[in-house]
């Protein structure tokens, strides 16, 4: 359901706009449809195409992308069209192709520091807050949907399929980041839903391969976090979010920023202490030299 397999070189023709797209490669596949890297044969530009037979999902995501175009983190969106082939009706939209690596692949190849993990969560949290201000939740957060844009040098969010108006039921989600899958509440769009998934993303960044799966239960996530080396006040805050006790997104991000700055200050202090060491060396060295000269002169004097 919702999937189609297109080979390299296949050409997709928009039913309404008559634009031609040639398939270059497959970028990914989700529950709703597939995303391909294509070249627009009329303009010669390379872009990404999301294709599915689910008209509702494709139309809704296209509109959400348009609604939130002012956010830099979101890919620039092109056109929405249909494609009919062999009696099968497919729906697609075009968008900016983002060159880079998704975060899931990235953390598999190298370990990231706590400081970097906090930085990432602060960026995503900031984007989430903008959705919340406009009465929406992001919904379907996951590492695979976060791209490290090599050209712009920033983090981009590539899938808006889970964006849901506050108070409505969440329809698209990924179990590992979804509080209902962990048996921690309703699948309903509210601020706490996004905070739960953000907190899980943070846990994933900290624990990497050691991240427990749902059958292990939420306690195992908490146990993992205990060993991640976070200061205990923030650990308690993360625990509260895991168990969906009342924590506001604002408070969470504020505490996280404090932690980020503390770490920076710590690094800074460390650098100063190295400088201190250098000063001490210079200072100590000059005293030594002074004594040496005195001893030398004294020796000379006594010899004479």
């Amino acid at each position: 359901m919702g999937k189609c397999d297109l080979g390299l070189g296949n050409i997709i023709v928009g039913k309404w706009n008559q634009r031609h797209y040639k398939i270059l490669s497959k970028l990914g596949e989700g529950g709703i449809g597939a995303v391909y890297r294509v070249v627009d044969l009329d303009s010669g530009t390379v872009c990404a195409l999301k294709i599915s037979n689910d008209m509702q999902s494709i139309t809704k995501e296209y509109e959400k992308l348009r609604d939130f175009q002012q956010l830099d983190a979101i890919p620039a969106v092109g056109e929405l069209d249909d494609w009919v082939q062999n009696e099968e009706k497919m729906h697609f939209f075009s968008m900016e192709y983002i060159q880079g690596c998704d975060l899931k692949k990235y953390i598999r190849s190298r370990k990231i520091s706590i400081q970097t993990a906090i930085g990432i969560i602060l960026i995503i949290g900031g984007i989430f807050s903008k959705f919340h201000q406009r009465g929406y939740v992001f919904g379907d957060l996951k590492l695979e949907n976060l791209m490290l844009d090599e050209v712009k040098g920033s983090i981009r969010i590539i899938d808006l399929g889970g964006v849901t108006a506050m108070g409505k039921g969440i329809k698209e989600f990924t179990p590992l980041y979804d509080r209902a899958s962990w048996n921690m509440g309703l699948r309903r769009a509210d601020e706490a839903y996004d905070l739960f998934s953000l907190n899980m993303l943070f846990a994933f960044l900290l624990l990497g391969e050691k991240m427990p799966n749902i059958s292990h239960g939420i306690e195992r996530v908490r146990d993992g976090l205990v060993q991640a080396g976070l200061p205990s006040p923030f650990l308690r805050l993360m625990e509260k979010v895991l168990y969906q006790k009342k924590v506001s997104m604002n408070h969470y991000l504020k505490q996280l920023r404090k932690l980020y700055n503390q770490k920076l200050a710590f690094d800074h202090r460390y650098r100063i202490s190295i400088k201190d060491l250098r000063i001490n060396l210079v200072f100590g060295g000059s005293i030594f030299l002074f004594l040496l000269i005195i001893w030398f002169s004294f020796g000379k004097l006594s010899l004479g």
Partner: protein
Amino acid sequence: MKKPEIKQIIVVTDGKSNIGGSPSEAAMQAARAGITVNAIGIMASREMDDEFLQEVEEIAQAGKGISETAMIQDLGHTMHMVTQKSMNKTIETIVGKQLKEILGNELEEIPPRSRNKIIEYMDQLGETIGLKCCIVMDCSGSMGPKIGTARQSIIELMNSLKGRGGKSEIAVIAYPGENGDYCRVVQSFTEDLDQIKRSVLTLKTGGTTPTAPAIKEALELIQGEHIQKSLGNDWSQTPLLKESMV
């Protein structure tokens, strides 16, 4: 006037039916009564058992629903997706008909950028419409090690449906039932999550796979509120009697 309501059955099974008649015939009966029958096949491994898969597909096809396969750990997510897709399909059909009456057009004949208003309307309908969902859960011997996750998936589906604005009711039927019965109503329709949590704990495994009688029981349970109990009973018991005579 009675509010519109979506009625569906979700058959969850991990093996081919082996007693009690044809499941797809039972699904067809339900579809004729306006009840969608979806089917989820639980796979033991990635390898495919063709006959089993075919039966899962046939049930959904006859029941005008959605069929899907899943590993047991993905059952919760799959139940959500199947319910959602099948609801969307029903709503698309209802709205599509209205559209045709008003505009003489199908949604696909309207330019893509103009569809959004109608799709938003369908979305809103899906958010607020009443939903009755009867889960027909395989409890045969082979489900033994999976039943814990199956219980959790039912609770999860309730948490998912309650996230909507509309009224959502869930019922659970286990097959086989106890003491040689083909099936057992574990929970009749309720909105109460705690009630469901309690009753799924009574799900036990062991015995055969009488899929068809369980689907008929679900049909009867959904219709029970409109048709007199005795009438429904006679009608659904007939094939069972034939089966036991063989």
